[in-house]
């Protein structure tokens, strides 16, 4: 990712955009922060917020005409927040180092004094040339200002270095201005306006007058606007002294439209509590401040457990990921975050600007692979699984007795591994209804894509396309929307359709009873961009007489079950929380049409059926009854399915069993769960035991139990076991590591 790509991502996420109050304030006071501080009773913090934004905070805090109240989102839900009435704070001066530049302001009212205040903060030596008494001018503005308040402000200006000097009535403005490096005239003081006759601001951005170094502004009915022009004028003075452009990059100095989005559709109206004539007391100010909606976007974060996990939002994540990729030495602390995104695309479909964590994280993964910085543990289990699905777990056949295919049924790994019993009746049904349907068991390549392994993905796609062409380029019918998504994105020459759109147009098979109670329908994330598939599923459900409820986030806004993007491989605790959050959204039983979603919701303890469970029920089995199929069972079921179909449909001899496959493992539930948790598949255990017996390489604990190890590729597996005779072994424990033990222990 280069800088410009980072900028493109950052630009899309609007979470850091200012709230409406701040964007519309001519001085950009952060009203959201102010309300938060006041509502919480943190008044010192509130003072700092005001002081940071406002020149003459004592005065403006009391008399601001609060243009922020108009765009305030609360205005649409009861009434804008009375920010102006909340500012009743005390300020103290501080010494500011001087930078040696000598400038002046002319006029003793809001605009010139605001300019002076800003000039002092910029380090200028500021002379305030007065025509009338500032105290008199300011007191005339509003009866909210008392002599004490105004004097405090004037004292502060003097304390930080402002020099008050009457404007010499006998001299021309030009002449006086020549004493200083630059001059700002505040036109809201009558004397200054008179002296400046003929010196009008020519440009509303810079307030320049046609006399170099002479700026003028403040001729506005709005107090806050007068002060804002003072600020604008002082920025021009600074730019003038630096020789910088007076115009460039000043678009957001005055009020502007924020790009922030805040959903207020669920916000109940709450009218303001008006300030009494003497102003708010503490309780009143807190109550009013608490009405602030604390505007922010967070639309994607609110709905995504993954985005919540790292306590930020996409713009911040884009920066973190960019930094992570740029690290040469030191810890890459964002690796896990990058690998934990489910790549489901929900955020980009919710975001007003289409920010895509999927593009961000997938791009980052590809870059990590290219840099050889991808943690090996993140994805290799899934990639091994994919390799198995595309070797011993694969099957490609024309329909029995046929030598050509118009269609190929592509069930996908998870249906084959999660509900193998469904495949044969479903395939037979399709063959019955459609002429020339072949069968294709293999992996679509999604794991390689998700892992950022473009090399593996490209070669898998090449093989897939070759196999498809070898069958006469038939239309592929996928049961899994994930497979369909891959084919539609990356195998454009393959015509691929969803099983659900195919089934929708057929008389449905005779099926068993469906639940009388409604079920909540979960759309898999891979169907989010397939409205035709989602509609077909709903049609089929209604044909079956299934009553459905939609989940809060459904259709194109649906969320992932925790499998997508190999989230579960990279971050299992997070994936568990993702599934748990989804199944808690509705107390009803769930219905879905993705084998992986069904499996993971079952794992999360939710009664969840696959739509195929109702169309092709297994005799005597409750559709909701199938337990979670772990990684070992999925692999074993996939291989068994290939064997079963070869025998039943094509009368073929099965691949000969490998010797280790006949080993029988005996283990209790706790060991089974341990193996599942540690992703140690039973086939590996059998292979290990077979090798240990064959070579005799094991460790004898002297009590009839042994320990042996095997390193088939990147992981060393250890098993503690007790031989039971006749090829049966009790497994007592198993563990693994990636570190390589060199032969340092061997004696010469």
């Amino acid at each position, binding site marked *: 990712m280069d800088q410009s790509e980072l900028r493109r991502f950052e630009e899309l996420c609007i979470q850091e955009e200012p709230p409406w109050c701040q964007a519309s304030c001519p001085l950009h006071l952060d009203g959201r922060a102010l309300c938060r501080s006041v509502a919480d009773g943190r008044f010192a913090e509130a003072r700092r917020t005001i002081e940071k934004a406002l020149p003459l905070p004592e005065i403006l805090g009391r008399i601001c005409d609060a243009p922020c109240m108009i765009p305030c989102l609360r205005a649409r839900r009861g009434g804008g927040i009375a920010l102006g009435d909340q500012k009743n704070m005390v300020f103290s001066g501080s010494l500011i180092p001087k930078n040696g530049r000598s400038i002046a302001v002319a006029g003793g009212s809001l605009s010139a004094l605001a300019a002076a205040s800003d000039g002092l903060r910029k380090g200028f030596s500021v002379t305030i040339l007065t025509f009338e008494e500032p105290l008199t001018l300011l007191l005339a503005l509003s009866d909210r200002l008392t002599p004490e308040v105004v004097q405090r402000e004037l004292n502060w200006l003097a304390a930080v270095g402002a020099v008050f000097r009457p404007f010499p009535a006998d001299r021309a403005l030009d002449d006086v201005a020549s004493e200083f490096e630059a001059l700002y005239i505040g036109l809201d003081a009558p004397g200054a306006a008179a002296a400046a006759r003929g010196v009008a601001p020519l440009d509303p951005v810079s307030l320049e007058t046609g006399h170099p170094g002479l700026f003028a502004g403040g001729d506005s009915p709005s107090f806050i606007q007068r002060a804002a022009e003072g600020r604008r004028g002082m920025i021009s003075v600074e730019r003038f002294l630096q020789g910088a452009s007076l115009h460039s990059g000043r678009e957001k100095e005055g009020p502007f439209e924020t790009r922030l989005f805040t959903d207020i559709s669920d916000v109940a109206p709450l009218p303001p509590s008006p300030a009494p004539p003497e102003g708010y007391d503490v309780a009143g100010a807190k109550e009013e401040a608490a009405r602030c909606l604390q505007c922010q976007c967070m639309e994607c974060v609110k709905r995504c457990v993954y985005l919540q996990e790292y306590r930020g939002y996409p713009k911040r994540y884009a920066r973190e990921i960019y930094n992570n990729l740029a690290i040469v030495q*030191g*810890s*890459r*602390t964002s*690796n*896990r975050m990058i690998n934990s995104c489910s790549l489901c695309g929900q955020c980009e479909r919710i975001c007003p600007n289409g920010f895509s964590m999927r593009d961000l994280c997938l791009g980052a993964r590809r870059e990590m692979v290219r840099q050889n910085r991808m*943690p*090996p*543990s*993140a994805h290799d289990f899934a990639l091994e699984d994919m390799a198995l699905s595309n070797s011993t777990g694969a099957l490609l056949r024309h329909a029995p007795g046929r030598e050509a295919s118009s269609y190929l049924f592509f069930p996908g790994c998870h249906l084959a591994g999660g509900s193998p019993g469904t495949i044969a009746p479903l395939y037979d049904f399709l063959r019955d209804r459609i002429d020339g349907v072949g069968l294709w068991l293999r992996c679509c390549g999604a794991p390689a894509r998700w892992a950022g392994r473009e090399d593996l993905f490209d070669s898998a796609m090449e093989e897939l396309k070759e196999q498809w062409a070898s069958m006469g380029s038939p239309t592929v019918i996928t049961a899994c929307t994930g497979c369909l998504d891959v084919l539609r994105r990356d195998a454009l020459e393959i015509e691929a359709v969803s099983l659900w759109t195919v089934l929708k147009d057929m008389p449905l098979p005779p099926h068993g009873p469906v639940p009388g109670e409604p079920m909540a329908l979960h759309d898999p994330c891979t169907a989010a961009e397939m409205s035709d598939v989602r509609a077909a599923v709903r049609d089929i459900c209604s044909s079956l007489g299934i009553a459905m409820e939609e989940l809060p986030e459904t259709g194109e806004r649906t969320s992932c079950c925790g499998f997508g993007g190999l989230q579960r491989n990279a971050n299992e605790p997070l994936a568990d929380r993702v599934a748990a959050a989804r199944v808690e959204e509705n107390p009803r039983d769930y219905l879905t049409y993705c084998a992986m979603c069904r499996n993971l919701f079952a794992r999360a303890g939710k009664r969840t059926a696959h739509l195929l469970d109702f169309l092709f029920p297994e005799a005597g089995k409750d559709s909701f009854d199938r337990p979670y199929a772990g990684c070992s069972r999925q692999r074993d079921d996939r291989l068994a399915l290939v064997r079963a179909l070869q025998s039943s449909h094509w009368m073929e001899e099965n691949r000969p069993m490998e010797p280790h496959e006949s080993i029988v493992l005996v283990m209790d539930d706790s060991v089974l769960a341990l193996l599942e948790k*540690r992703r140690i598949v039973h086939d590996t255990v059998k292979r290990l035991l077979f090798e240990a017996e064959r*070579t*005799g*390489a*094991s*460790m*004898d*604990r*002297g009590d009839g139990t*042994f*320990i042996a*190890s095997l390193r088939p590729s990147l992981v*060393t597996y*250890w098993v*503690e076991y007790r031989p039971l005779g006749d090829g049966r072994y009790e497994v007592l*424990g198993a*563990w*693994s*590591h*990636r*570190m*390589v*033990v*060199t*032969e*340092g*222990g*061997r*004696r010469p």
Partner: protein
Amino acid sequence: MTALVDLEKYAGVTCTRCRCPLEPTKTEITYLGSVFTVDLPACPSCGMVLVPEELAMGKMLDVEKILEDK
């Protein structure tokens, strides 16, 4: 990474092939270019090394994770 394994615990374990009791042995383990030395039970005859569960799933896993994020 020395003394990470309670070697006493494996005192009674023998190498099935060589019939030798395992002995604490300085062993090199490597990952992603980093090398560590640790005392592990090993067969004094054939050199076969035992990596106990508590080491593999404890400190070793921690170090693997740290190295993977380097």
